[in-house]
Structure formats: structure tokens, C-alpha cells
């Protein structure tokens, strides 16, 4: 393994205790290697910092989104009476609609039968009544005439 790779693994805590001790001793003795470690340390730090800088941009978006969402909710406050009243009104309208539709369907299907069943007796009854009342009138007139004649 190259010394640079070893330095990187040292910074990542990825060396065995023995290798670590050996490398640290080497770094103490060699200022150039020590400088190399400092350089990689700064590069890794910059990578983390850049990641966080990009995350900050995303977080600004989340914050904006959250605040805007809350403000939208504030504009239309939740009112349980309006909410449940709305549901009740909707249900009533749906029921009324179905009731009306059913009635229309019944009328359409049964109208001929109703006329057939109801109309005849109604006509028959009224005709009988009319005939009976005419008969009664005629009888009364006849009675009255015969009484006049007898007199």
C-alpha cells in the first residue's frame, strides 16, 4: 500500500492498531509526510463542508415550503362545524338526487299500468254515478208529474 493511501486510511480510522502506531511514528519523524497528512485532512474537511453547503440550499427550500404550507392553511382555517355541515349537506343532496331519480323511474315504468288500472274504475264509477243521478232526477220528475196528474 502506498504511503499516501495509508495516510488516507489513517484519517478514516481504517488502520489496525499496529499499522496506525507505525505510521504515526513515521509521521512524527518525517515533516513532509506530516504535511501530507495535513493536506488530506483539509481536503476531507472541504468535501464535508461542500456537502453541507449544498444541503443548506435544500434546507432553505424545505423551510420555505413548510412556511408557505402553514400560511396557506391559515388562510382557510379548519372549522369543524363548517366541515361536518358540509358533509351533511352533501349527503342530503346525494340522497335527494337518488330519491328524485328513483321517483322518475317509477313514474316512467308504471304510468301505463296506473292508467289502465285506475282510469277504468274511475270512469266507470263516475259514469254510474252520473247515470244514477240522472235516473233519480228522472224518477223524481215522473213522480211529480203523476202526482200533478192525480191531483
Amino acid at each position: 500500500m502506498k504511503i499516501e493511501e495509508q495516510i488516507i486510511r489513517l484519517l478514516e480510522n481504517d488502520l489496525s492498531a499496529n499499522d496506525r502506531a507505525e505510521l504515526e511514528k513515521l509521521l512524527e519523524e518525517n515533516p513532509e509526510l506530516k504535511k501530507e497528512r495535513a493536506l488530506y485532512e483539509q481536503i476531507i474537511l472541504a468535501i464535508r463542508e461542500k456537502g453541507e453547503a449544498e444541503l443548506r440550499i435544500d434546507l432553505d427550500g424545505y423551510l420555505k415550503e413548510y412556511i408557505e404550507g402553514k400560511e396557506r392553511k391559515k388562510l382557510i382555517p379548519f372549522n369543524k362545524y363548517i366541515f361536518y355541515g358540509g358533509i351533511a349537506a352533501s349527503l342530503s343532496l346525494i340522497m335527494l338526487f337518488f330519491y328524485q331519480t328513483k321517483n322518475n323511474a317509477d313514474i316512467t315504468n308504471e304510468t301505463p299500468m296506473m292508467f289502465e288500472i285506475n282510469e277504468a274504475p274511475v270512469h266507470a264509477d263516475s259514469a254510474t254515478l252520473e247515470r244514477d243521478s240522472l235516473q233519480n232526477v228522472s224518477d223524481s220528475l215522473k213522480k211529480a208529474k203523476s202526482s200533478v196528474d192525480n191531483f
Partner: protein
Amino acid sequence: MTEANIIKELKNGNTSVLKHVYVHLNTVTSFVTKNSGSREDGHDIFQETVIVFHRNAIKEEFLLTSSIGTYLFAIGRRMWLNQLRRKKIKIADSEIDQDLTAVETFEFELPQFSSPDLGQKIHKILDEVGDTCKEILQLFYFKKLNLEAIKERLAYRSSQVVRQQKYRCLKKIRDKVSKMPTLIQQP
């Protein structure tokens, strides 16, 4: 989404789940506004709180012993109190002494660069080394995914190939940085 799922997704490198922690925004903001801060201060503190939460949640040893809300509040509260101390603004002692035993210790800040503009220069180099290098390095060092997970995610043949690729990318950056004069100081 459950709190356990949020932690799990963060450990898998999915930072978009952080949008779910914004339900706790008001808790932190209220603390700040009640203690000499503005609403904007509260939002800034919350954003930093989420960064610290992410930084800790992706650590292998991280174990959440309280709810995410309590954890965020503890971080935010301590951050704001530190900021007030720096500005030398005094608030009631009871606030400072309040104990939040449910919360583990957490890392607040990254170490500092040896020279002020070195970070910016390496950021620029990172943008120049190509998307593959940038992605591998960020998945490994920022999102803390292991080599096996990166292999799966980026469809590499083996984790050894990922390790080699990562090494080559770091070396590429190192060579570019070392060409910049007097940036790295002796530790």
C-alpha cells in the same frame, strides 16, 4: 414517516427526509423569540440545528434516545444560548441550567481550515474533478456511506474498485491543491 425511518433514510444517504423534521420548527423558533431573538433568528437556528442533527444521525454509533423533536430542541436551545453568550446577552439562569438528560452529546462544529480561503479553493477544485469523483467523495465523506453501499448505489463491480476510485479522486484534488502556493500551513 416514522422517526426510525427518518434516521434509517439519513443513514442511507437520503437527505430529502429532512423535510419531515420541519414540524418541529415552531418549538425551536418559540424558544428563540422568547429569549431576545427574532423569528428570523429562530429560523436560522433551526436550519443549523437540522445540519447538526444530520451530522450526528449519519454517524455509525448514533442512537436516538429521545424523540427527534426533543433532540432538535436541545440542539437549538444550546446553540441559541451559545450565541447569546457570544453576544453577551444575559437571560434567566433557570434557562441555562435547565437539564436535558434525554439527549446525547452532539458535535456542533466542523474543525477549521488552516487558512481562511483554502476551503473555498478546494470547493472549486471539487467542482472541476468531475461528477463521478464528486459523488463518490461526498457519499463517503459527507453522507458517510460505506464502500459496500456506494458500490451498490453507483453499480461498481466491487467495494475494492470503489476504494481505488476514491483514492484516485483524492489524489487528483491533492495534486491540484499542492500547486496552489502557500495554502497549506504546517500543523
